[in-house]
């Protein structure tokens, strides 16, 4: 699978600065940066599609007794929106970010198992295609929600071929993510450069270690659940037994809860990097945060039963206890983030704005999670819009803000181009207003009793005003995302019209190794022109700048760019 051993700091014809072009080279590449970009690009495109589905849903719910889409179509919309965002957008983007960044951050010239990683991408992309192809079938796409409980999802109640395509698509995409996750984990554990001890890895790489451990532990359970569902669709008698109906829920949620953290940790890691860079200091409480990430990840494997409180067939006390214990590592991480900001010299560039908004917004998602992790409250709000609000505060107000912080932070490194600061700020403020206008009213809707997954409601239900606010918020969100798309398109267009205006190697004065190399990085990440700096801590570039300030190293090596 691999060729001769080479030091990453030597140059040769094979070590060309930029990998050769051509679309076939992209599709068959073993360069982790290209595989990461393919994965993240696919996820972002699918995010736009899933956003359109959400707009249709919010259009349908904007007024009582609306008839924009038929109830059956509405079921397909919320199923494919939820499935798509979880299986095809947030999880793959998180893993793709790891594929791109972890080898760079640990000082390696390549990812472990590059061909397997590429296979992971293609299984994901083909899985997405298969899953979405359900819309082209006569009965339409799958319509039983992202967790698709039997017997609702069996062949008797969901006879459409779209359901079978959904099972195959999710299976393929999940296998792809397991493979890519294993490659990222192995790279962090076994491909670190000399000097890069485990406790010198940047927090983002640590967040990927915790994430990929959860991928290894939890994702096979989804494959088992999908296998059970497929078997049940072939032989309906399987789901005549309560054991397998509840068994399916156990298998599904054993995956379904940790995946929330798979969709959160990498963005938390990205936010940690951004906060440290734009606060001009090391991340506060690095070791405690690393330990809390690992503990948080392990605890997240133990709480799945809180999704099944209302079945009355799980050990409620245990799952409630472990759900509450999650507060401890979460608190340590928040302590680290707040400590970094409070004692730093803040620079309010666009990535920092997204990272700062992440802190209070995710807190709302986290605290309401503690509420629904308590059986007495969960019994009251289960399957209501309160749950919809909670999960969107976790995954959109939290993770998506982390995602955009990551995009704005690493865009110059990945493309060699700077995004427009003005459009970025417009994007940010529209997203803040849109997010809270959309999802905050949903807490109220849940509190007054609106069930989730209903295609309509009567005018006398009293849900009209809050739904209208949420739909207006969705419109603002769409404007915000449009600003982002325009920003990216305009940045590339500007390069074509006016020639390249390259971003510096380290435009923010950041701390980790990826900022020591060129923007974009060369094929093997580090070259004699951009060698690995001495790795003396988890912030080697900050060390270099501090030594330069004290006169220990030449100024030029240490002072490229800076957040200002």
């Amino acid at each position, binding site marked *: 699978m691999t060729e001769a051993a080479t030091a990453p700091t030597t140059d040769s014809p094979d070590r060309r600065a930029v990998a050769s072009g051509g679309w076939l080279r992209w599709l068959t590449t073993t360069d982790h940066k290209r595989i990461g970009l393919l994965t993240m690009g696919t996820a972002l495109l699918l995010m736009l599609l899933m956003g359109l589905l959400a707009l249709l849903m919010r259009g349908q719910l904007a007024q009582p007794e609306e008839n924009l889409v038929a109830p059956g179509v509405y079921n397909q919309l919320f199923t494919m929106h939820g499935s798509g965002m979880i299986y095809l957008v947030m999880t793959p983007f998180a893993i793709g970010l790891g594929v791109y960044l972890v080898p760079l951050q640990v000082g390696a010239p390549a990812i472990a198992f590059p061909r397997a990683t590429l296979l992971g991408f293609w299984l994901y992309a083909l899985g997405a295609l298969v899953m979405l192809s359900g819309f082209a079938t006569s009965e339409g796409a799958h319509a039983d929600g992202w967790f698709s409980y039997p017997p609702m999802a069996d062949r008797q109640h969901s006879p459409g071929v779209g359901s*079978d395509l959904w099972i*195959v698509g999710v299976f*393929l995409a999940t296998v792809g993510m397991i493979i890519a996750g294993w490659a990222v984990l192995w790279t962090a554990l*076994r491909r670190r450069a000399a000097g890069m*001890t485990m406790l010198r890895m940047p927090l983002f790489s640590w967040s990927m270690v915790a994430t990929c451990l959860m991928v290894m532990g939890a994702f096979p359970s989804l494959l088992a659940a999908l296998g059970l569902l497929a078997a049940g669709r072939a032989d309906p008698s399987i789901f005549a037994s309560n054991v397998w109906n509840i068994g399916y829920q156990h298998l599904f949620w054993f995956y379904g809860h940790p995946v929330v953290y798979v969709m959160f940790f990498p963005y938390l890691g990205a936010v940690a990097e951004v906060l440290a860079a734009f606060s001009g200091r090391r991340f506060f409480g690095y070791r405690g945060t690393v330990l809390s990430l690992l503990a948080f990840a392990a605890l997240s494997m133990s709480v799945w039963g809180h999704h099944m409180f209302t079945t009355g067939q799980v050990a409620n*006390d245990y799952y409630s206890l*472990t759900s509450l214990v999650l507060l401890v590592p979460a608190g340590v991480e928040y302590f680290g983030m707040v400590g970094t900001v409070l004692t730093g010299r803040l620079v309010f560039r666009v990535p920092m704005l997204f990272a700062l908004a992440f802190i209070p917004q995710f807190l709302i998602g986290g605290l309401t999670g503690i509420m629904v992790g308590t059986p007495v409250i969960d019994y009251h709000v289960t399957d209501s819009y309160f749950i919809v609000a909670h999960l969107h505060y976790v995954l959109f107000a939290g993770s998506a803000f982390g995602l955009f912080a990551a995009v704005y932070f690493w865009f110059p490194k990945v493309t060699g181009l700077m995004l427009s600061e003005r459009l970025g700020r417009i994007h940010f403020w529209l997203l803040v207003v849109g997010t809270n206008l959309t999802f905050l009213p949903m807490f109220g809707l849940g509190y007054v009793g609106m069930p989730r997954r209903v295609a309509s409601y009567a005018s006398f239900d009293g849900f009209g005003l809050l739904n209208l606010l949420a739909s207006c918020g969705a419109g603002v969100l769409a404007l915000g995302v449009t600003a982002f798309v325009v920003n990216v398109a305009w940045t590339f267009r500007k390069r074509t019209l006016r020639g390249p205006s390259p971003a510096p190697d380290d435009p923010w004065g950041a701390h980790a190794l990826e900022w020591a190399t060129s923007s974009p990085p060369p094929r093997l990440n580090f070259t004699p022109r951009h060698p690995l700096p001495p790795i003396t801590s988890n912030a080697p570039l900050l060390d270099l700048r501090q030594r330069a300030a004290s006169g220990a190293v030449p100024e030029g090596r240490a002072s490229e760019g800076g957040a200002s």
Partner: protein
Amino acid sequence: MTRHPAFVVVAAWGLFNGVLLAVLAVYGESSLVYWLWGGVVALLELAALAVLLSSLAGPEQHVGYRLPGRGGVAVLPAAVGLAVLGLGFVHGWWLLAVAVPLLGCALLLGAVRGRGAGDE
């Protein structure tokens, strides 16, 4: 063991899962849960063992690397073959007639390109 910190991380993480499972046993759960989570703990310890074996065979940190010398030209037909195999569940197993040649083609490409000159 401190010479193999990567192993310690994976093994300890798996063991912590085992401890949480043991606490769950105090509360009581269905047998499926013990098999499921117990199997995962075993899987994680196997992964830890793989990390340990790799650590024993090579350095903890690297100055030289084995690098990917060729593109993954066999990967795309392999992925398409696997996807078609999956579609056999939906549209019928006659699709094996498409999937098997594709997977064979991927194997062949992997073997041929595996011996050839690097393309990337």
